[in-house]
């Protein structure tokens, strides 16, 4: 690894998450020489190192998404405990990201080799074709410069690269289509018992918005975790122990960590790189892109630190023919802003979007067998598209398998509450056994529109220990999305009632101290409280578009301002639809990588 920076590379890729790793693999498989610079550490690349993450998770008090991965002051990440209610105190400075409000940005990401794919859930639905034409069809947001049909072949490649388990027949809805001879690389993950109870309980149910009734259907979810392979596909097992993790083993801890690595992480792609052509340098925080007079990128400057515990570093520069910024929607925007690059449109850092995650929870009449299996195995896709999008946001309905999880933190909270009431012994054990398996939590992944005021900025007042900028986040949720939450709550009540759950057993409530608490004025003028969580789906900060005035990159994710610069990842998505974005980002990355290969020819 040493000495590498003095060489000249075909491509320097900044970031080793699913996007950076798959670009690196595409280029190096074609003989291009690539250098990957990763700000975080590489402690997960040996099987033993990865198991140390599992132990850290087991001993972590708060088992939040970044809990297995040790804090790294030189490449900091925000932890959920750092996210507070912004309405009570602005700005929030406690974490790595600085929150300016008016609402909290409730999502976190991870800076480590493998990026946030270490802690993601693995949910991998395609976007629906109408998601790409929001402005034309519904008069909101913007259109994409590409269509579903353009992206379709790249979706196929992405599903193979991530190892997605699903059945084509389950996913063919709202115009999503697949090639005749194609199916997912692995069979669908079996739906949980809880999913089956919900499907049975909602048979024949429909929910009406405007003058249209939307039938509720429970459908298997596409997931990047190993199942029974189709054809010649070989599941990718654990890094360093490929016989482990050939199937999802039901550990029920996908977020924050799959102990057997049956869930995809980009560590698997990095492990497959041809090391004659690809070099990885970790603990290398890129601080600046160097731009020459003709507007091309001339090099990158990075700070290589020796250890987490010390802020000693050396500054190194490296040069390549093309540069690929794939450092995460927030980090990529931050780096480009710090470099004075790629921002002639003034769109850089703007249009930050997430899927505000709305949850409802209730007690079912009978056991759902909760706390078993992956976090979610089925969805209700019914509200991913429809005429209602003129009025409110689309959403995907995820059926949780882990009880009330983030709503109340079971089962520990149940134990504590019963003990506080001096309920011990057999009664304690029996009451837990009766109540917790009946906990049902439904999650709503809600679309958010691009808005220029929702943005990542930098400010010399807020720097990290290496002298790099911390991201400063400005964030709000528009009425379009809030109205989507009200609609989601209506769906929720319909589902609960249809399952025989009485109002007394619906426990959804919105706590004014929670970070995502807010009010919404309905059409009838009623003020209603709402609350949301982050989905960890940072999007939009370097969006693609049709012209250099409306966007940061073109459809190949090539900077309008710098020919040899690509900015790839979820930040390039002009709108969010209701699909978890990693699969789409990786599909877009393959499209970009093919374009890079033409440039490098």
């Amino acid at each position, binding site marked *: 690894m040493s000495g590498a920076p003095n060489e000249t590379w075909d491509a320097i890729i900044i970031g080793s998450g699913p996007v950076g790793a798959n670009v690196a693999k595409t280029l190096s498989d074609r003989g291009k020489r690539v250098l990957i610079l990763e700000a975080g550490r590489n402690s997960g690349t040996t099987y033993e190192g990865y198991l140390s993450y599992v132990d850290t998770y087991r001993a972590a008090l708060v088992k939040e998404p970044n809990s297995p991965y040790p*804090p790294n002051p030189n490449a900091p990440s925000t932890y959920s405990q750092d996210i*507070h209610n912004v309405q009570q105190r602005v700005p929030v400075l406690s974490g790595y990201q600085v929150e300016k409000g008016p609402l909290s940005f409730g*999502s976190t990401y991870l800076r480590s080799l493998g990026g946030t794919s270490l802690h993601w859930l693995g949910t991998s639905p395609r976007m629906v074709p109408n998601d790409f034409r929001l402005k034309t069809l519904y008069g909101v947001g913007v259109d994409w410069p590409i269509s579903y049909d353009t992206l379709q072949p790249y979706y196929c490649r992405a599903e193979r690269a991530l190892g997605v388990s699903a059945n084509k027949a389950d996913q063919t809805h709202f115009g999503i289509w697949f090639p005749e001879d194609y199916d997912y690389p692995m069979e669908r993950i079996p739906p949980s018992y809880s999913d089956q109870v919900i499907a049975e309980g909602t048979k024949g149910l429909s929910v009406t918005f405007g003058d249209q009734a939307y039938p509720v259907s429970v459908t298997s979810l596409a997931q990047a975790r190993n199942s029974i392979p189709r054809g010649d596909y070989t599941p990718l097992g654990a890094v360093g122990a490929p016989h482990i993790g050939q199937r999802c083993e039901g550990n029920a801890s996908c977020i924050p960590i799959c102990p*057997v690595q049956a869930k995809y992480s980009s560590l698997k792609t990095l492990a497959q790189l041809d090391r004659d052509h690809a070099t990885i340098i970790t603990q290398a925080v890129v601080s600046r892109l160097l731009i020459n007079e003709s507007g091309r990128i001339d090099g990158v400057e990075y700070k290589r630190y020796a250890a987490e515990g010390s802020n000693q570093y050396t500054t190194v520069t490296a040069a390549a023919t093309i540069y690929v910024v794939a450092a995460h929607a927030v980090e990529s925007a931050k780096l480009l802003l710090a470099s004075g690059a790629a921002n002639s449109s003034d769109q850089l850092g703007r249009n930050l979007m997430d899927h505000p995650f709305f949850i409802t929870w209730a007690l079912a009449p009978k056991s759902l067998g909760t706390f078993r299996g992956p976090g979610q195995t089925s969805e209700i896709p019914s509200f991913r598209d429809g005429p209602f999008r003129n009025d409110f946001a689309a959403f995907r309905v995820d059926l949780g398998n882990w009880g009330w999880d983030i709503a109340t*933190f079971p089962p*520990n909270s149940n134990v504590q509450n019963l003990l506080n009431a001096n309920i011990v*012994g057999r009664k*304690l054990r029996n009451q837990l056994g*009766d109540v917790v398996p009946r906990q049902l939590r439904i999650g709503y992944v809600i679309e958010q529109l691009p808005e220029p005021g929702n943005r990542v900025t930098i400010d010399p007042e807020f720097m990290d220990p290496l002298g790099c900028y911390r991201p400063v986040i400005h964030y709000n949720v528009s009425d379009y999305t809030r109205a989507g939450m009200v609609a989601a709550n209506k769906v929720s009540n319909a589902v609960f009632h249809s399952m025989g759950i009485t109002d007394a057993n619906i426990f959804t409530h919105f706590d004014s101290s929670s970070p995502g608490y807010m009010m919404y004025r309905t059409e009838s003028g009623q003020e209603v409280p709402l609350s949301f969580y982050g989905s960890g789906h940072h999007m939009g900060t370097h969006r693609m578009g049709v012209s250099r005035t409306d966007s940061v990159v073109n459809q190949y994710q090539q900077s309008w301002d710098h020919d040899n610069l690509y900015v790839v990842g979820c930040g390039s998505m002009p709108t969010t639809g209701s699909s978890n974005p990693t699969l789409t980002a990786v599909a877009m990355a393959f499209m970009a990588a093919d374009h890079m290969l033409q440039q490098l020819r």
Partner: protein
Amino acid sequence: MTYSAHDPRTMQAINTGPSHSAPQRTPLRTPPAPTALALERFVQLSGALTGYDHAELYGTGMVDVYLGTLTAIVGDGMTGRLLQRWADIVEEGGGDPHREPHKMEGLLRHQMLDDDTLGPVARNLAFLWYTGQWNQLPADWRDANGANALDQTYIISPDAYVQGLVWQAIHSHPMGAKQPGYGSWALPPQGNAP
């Protein structure tokens, strides 16, 4: 979907200690080996608090660890008081903790759980068995009985988490451990039938 924010109220109730990573612990001093009598009383009391039988408790491998944890955090004296109170309850209940469970339950509640000093310790012990987590004792308890530097909210060890009794109580397995196998989640639980 990811889980990234939290309800601070709930969080505070569950977790009051350092949170970003496993806290740096001073190794517990090795307490003197418990007497056979103390061990017997500890297991009996643990059984009464948790609803698990003695073999199940020994089967977790945590009996010695938890008695050692308790002794190190609240001290020999307090541990002795707790176990003596249990012995008194058993005696008052007729000498056999299993013969009249309802009577024993009432005695346990009134003479231990309702006690300002012993109640918080007993509830903590039950929580420890169920979750592998020691909760810092309430502030007024520490004011009255002394604050020990080891009395922090933390999970005893990765193994203590895995051995938490709560998972079996809810008819499942520890999240992130004891993997039940491909497709097991699709089967009816059937463990909850009355």
